[in-house]
């Protein structure tokens, strides 16, 4: 405002601040969302030049139509067992989320994050990868672990930060890690995993390996510099990596317009980097599977990265610390026009004659029982509230491979302190 010149002939500027269509009290309105018909988007050859995908970045790869039929060139033509397995994993994620959310509400741990409505982007994609490909998830892809049969009890022990926690109580709940399951250690710092995945994939290429990496990031987090580094390095070195953007349209209270979503799609970023890009109905497990497989084939053929926008909706709050009803209309998620990934895959299986309501109900009950049993077993090993992981010496371990003198001294001091507390 200082030294502002007089320029009567120039109109005054003003700042544009994007605003979502609806705030609390407003009616939910998704009529602006363009939804191409299932099966209407063409499927380039996975070996085609990246530019052939660029016409697709504003549309939406969809396979499941309104009647639950799989249609069009992207239909991955999965057998019924695989479809049932994907359905089962998604259902399990949802049951698990519900139990753990409740456990947090009961004070048994400090924090929890659900992935409700976003189960397909983790589960279906994982089934399209090889078991030994490495994933670099955010905190909302617990579905990857479930799809790879990570023990539920161990997941819960992590959430409870109890004796059974493989991360020794060090990490916030849901920040899982398991190399054996190809699940990279989750960072509290958004977006950092994205270029790390590129580096891992570069490593695989340098080593002449055949494994690829698959990274996840949220719509909001694409604004971080790490996103740019990932896309730049992945393109330049043709890293064998899948760069997934989970566009659930919210970043805590902030809608995707603040990340640039008003201007174009997130898939369109691929055009700017000259890499392959796809935009996919993230609530359509078959479309997610097909796009992931397309990108995986491309990566394995040494043709480099694919940026995949998985268009979905964050049905619940950001985390247990969040109440979305103060910044968006209540029950916005229920009105999401692309529906619920579990319901859609279920309908497909039913339409195929490979599933029915009774089996579905029975499976739900079985999973619920499985999760409750796991929870009991996990709680026997403690919760954050009642009996958390407590092992003073371990606090100083693994800062480095070996304890340097100053950590040894501090370890001894911490033990003396614990002694004094007991006294």
């Amino acid at each position, binding site marked *: 405002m200082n030294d502002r010149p007089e320029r009567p002939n120039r109109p005054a500027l003003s700042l544009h601040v994007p605003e979502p269509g609806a705030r609390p009290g407003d009616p939910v309105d998704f009529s602006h969302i363009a939804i191409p018909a299932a099966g209407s988007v063409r499927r380039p050859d996975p070996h085609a030049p990246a530019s052939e995908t660029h016409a697709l970045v504003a549309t939406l790869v969809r396979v499941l139509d309104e009647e639950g039929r799989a249609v069009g060139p992207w239909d991955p033509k999965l057998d019924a067992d695989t479809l049932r397995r994907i359905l089962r994993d998604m259902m399990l994620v949802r049951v698990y989320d519900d139990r753990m959310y409740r456990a947090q509400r009961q004070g048994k741990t400090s924090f929890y994050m659900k992935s409700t409505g976003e189960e397909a982007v983790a589960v279906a994609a994982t089934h399209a990868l090889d078991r030994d490909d490495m994933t670099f998830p955010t905190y909302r892809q617990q579905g990857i672990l479930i799809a790879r049969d990570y023990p539920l009890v161990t997941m819960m022990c992590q959430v409870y*930060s109890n004796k059974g926690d493989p991360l020794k109580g060090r*990490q916030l709940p849901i920040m899982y890690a398991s190399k054996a399951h190809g699940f990279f250690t989750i960072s509290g710092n958004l977006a950092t995993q994205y270029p790390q995945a590129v580096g891992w994939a570069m490593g695989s290429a340098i080593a002449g390996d055949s494994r690829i990496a698959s990274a996840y990031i949220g719509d909001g987090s694409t604004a971080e510099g790490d996103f740019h580094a990932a896309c730049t390095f992945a393109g330049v070195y043709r890293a064998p990596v899948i760069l997934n953007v989970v566009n659930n349209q919210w*970043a805590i209270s*902030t809608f995707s317009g603040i990340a640039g979503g008003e201007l174009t799609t997130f898939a369109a970023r691929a055009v700017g980097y000259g890499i392959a890009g796809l935009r996919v109905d993230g609530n359509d497990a078959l479309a997610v599977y097909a796009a992931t497989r397309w990108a995986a084939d491309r990566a394995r053929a040494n043709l480099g990265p694919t940026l995949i926008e998985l268009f979905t909706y964050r049905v619940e709050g950001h985390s247990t610390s969040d109440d979305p009803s103060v910044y968006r209309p209540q029950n916005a998620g229920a009105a999401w026009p692309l529906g619920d990934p579990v319901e859609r895959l279920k309908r497909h299986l039913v339409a195929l004659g490979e599933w029915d309501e009774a089996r579905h109900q029975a499976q739900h009950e079985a999973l619920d029982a499985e999760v409750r049993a796991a929870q009991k077993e996990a709680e026997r090993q403690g919760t954050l509230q009642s009996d958390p992981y407590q092992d003073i010496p371990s*606090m100083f371990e693994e800062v480095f491979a070996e304890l340097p003198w100053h*950590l040894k001294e501090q370890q001894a001091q911490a033990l003396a302190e614990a002694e004094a507390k007991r006294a």
Partner: protein
Amino acid sequence: MSVMNMIQALNSAHKVMFERDPTTVVLGEDVGYFGGVFRVTEGLQRDYGKQRCFDAPISENGIVAVAVGMAAYGLKPIAEIQFADYIYPGFDQIVSEAARMRYRSAGDWSLPMVIRSPYGGGIFGGQTHSQSPEALFAHIAGIKTVIPSNPYDAKGLLIAAIEDPDPVVFFEPKRIYNGPFDGYYERPVTPWAKHPAAEVPDGHYTVPLGKAAVAREGEEVTILAYGTMVHVALATAEANGIDAEVIDLRSIVPVDIEAIETSVRKTGRCVVFHEATRTAGFGAELAALVQERCFYHLEAPVARVTGWDTPYPHSMEWAYFPGPVRLGLALKKTLED
């Protein structure tokens, strides 16, 4: 005068400045319609419009950079970094740019801007919602670093920071947003309402940057602290019946060297107390300063009581947190030495 907790006091500082100075602007993640994850910017967008307070993309680098640009333009931006643990992507813009602008342009540009951030542990935030990175900023020439310990100071220091002609990093100990936590985590939480510093003037006032406060007078030993640790220090002195003088530094750069020297000369003993990791923490600077300047008054080495040189572990929060037991042991040793 109103009774305010720290969040309300910080919110009030924003409102006072938004009223007085149309060049003040707030930006950050979730600070707009929602009012910030800790509600510090609540009501600003509603009352002053989206051009004065708005949500930012999740890019701490971008947030700091555009704040630099806005300050270069002539505004007074106040940027919120959602957690201090997430300030690092913006580190280059703070260190290489905000801190250097006045110097490198020989005064042609100056940057009246504030970077606020909730900081410190004690809320089971795990290793990425608990950090205290103040030492990293103290080492950077051209940045002032401020850490309030109570509502009255929080408001007065924040207004002073906003009015300061240079960039200020302003860390808000989130554990004491709602009450003066003394480190006894097993006891029920006390709200600010019972604390005298919760009496906060409604209008404009400042607490000067670079001036410490004597939080407790004492004769036996000086405790240098800031933020949450001030309360832990007071409670520890009380619990152990030690006649400690507790200095609340309030700013660490510039640090109030006079207050420090005066106190240590009087007591002859000094314990430096912070939550951050120990090695090369700001406590090292304090210990170095005290022994340089009060060497012949010291009857014992300056002791440091700090967080451990490890990440902040989720389930062992209270074994990490430098609470009354750790401080008490150090005080006793310092008094014996």
